[in-house]
């Protein structure tokens, strides 16, 4: 129920945005994430963006996984 999936913000008009989710476009509300900008990925939950995904953090997490994995070899 607390499912939220990444959606790419394509355009913004007030509290509404057009977002792309796995190639499909839909209208979402960004009233909970006024800081969202075009080009951001947001976590989409029941039609509302509930957070802007922090891309730097995502990359850092992945880098950490990769470094640790390379130490394994």
């Amino acid at each position: 129920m607390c499912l939220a999936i990444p959606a790419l913000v394509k355009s913004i008009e007030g509290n509404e945005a057009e977002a792309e989710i796995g190639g499909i476009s839909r209208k979402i509300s960004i009233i909970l994430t006024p800081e969202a900008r075009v080009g951001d990925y947001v976590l989409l939950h029941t039609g509302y963006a509930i957070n802007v995904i922090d891309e730097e953090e995502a990359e850092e997490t992945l880098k950490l996984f990769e470094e640790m994995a390379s130490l394994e070899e």
Partner: protein
Amino acid sequence: MRFIDEFRDAELARAVVNRIHRRSNKHVRLMEFCGGHTVAIMKHGIRQLLPETVEMLSGPGCPVCVTANQDLDIAIALAREPGVIITTFGDMLKVPGSRSSLQRVRADSADVRVVYSTLDALQIARENPEKAVVFIGIGFETTAPTIAASILKAEEEGIRNYYVLSMNKLCPPVIKALLDCGEVKLDGLICPGHVSAIIGSHPWEFAARDYGISCVVSGFEPLDVLQSVEMLVDQLEKGEPRVEIAYRRGVRPEGNLRAQELMNAVFELSPANWRGIGMVPESGLRLRKEYERFDAELAFDIEPGPTLEHKGCLCGDILRGVRTPLDCKLFRTSCTPEHPVGPCMVSSEGSCASYFHYETA
């Protein structure tokens, strides 16, 4: 999909699993609070990948499952009211209350519509001004702000036929209730990622500070869950319980302040009735006085009748983490996703449904 596929990398996952095996000495019991995590763990066979020293339990983090029969009966009785359109997330449809379900009253000609969002429920209210449109407000902190937003929007637009049946529940207080009752012994908690996206990681501090429970806020892909288990094992081996965020791309320590603000503007704390757990103080949300006119329970005079429990169903024990679906005699026999006896078999995130779909043993 970006931010999903990368976190399913099998090779990276194997490396994390290896590290967990090397690091883990002590026997530890970890609870994944959230039904979304239970699904990820079952679907990707994570339990089987972990060393024997790491025991995983499922928690009460499925909003549909924890809704008490008494509350379900109110929703079902509301659906029977003339002139009412019920709007609900699809998961609620088949959940059996004491005597019926929303699906069954719909077959009896009640107007029950599945919506994906409160935005859709509002749209139905706009299109049907002569009807009362009630949204069945179940969910945790992830969903509550979206319900608050719909009420503020209805207020702003002057939509007078929109109501919410507020059965929202809050996660930290129920974890506290479980820990206080002492029935289930835990060492670590995998904290719900999307609840924490809203409330942040601070509301989990009490568990580490007062109960010595290690906490890690986790995302929902297999690498996320494994990383969280690794962080928990590491904390527990060191004997230093604290709250950490593994799901850093989705959760900030302070949470989503805007969402908290909307939630607090519309709702105030109230006791809530949890299936299998009972009344937990300050674990629910009711509408503030200013927004009372949106409260479906106040707007309609509902008499749901006496509450009956499902005979033989162990959902309550399963939600408290003291039994698993395999302990239930009805599992896979008279209780299946097609013919569910209890809510844990209905919701896709219920433990019984997860076990039904993914547990082959």
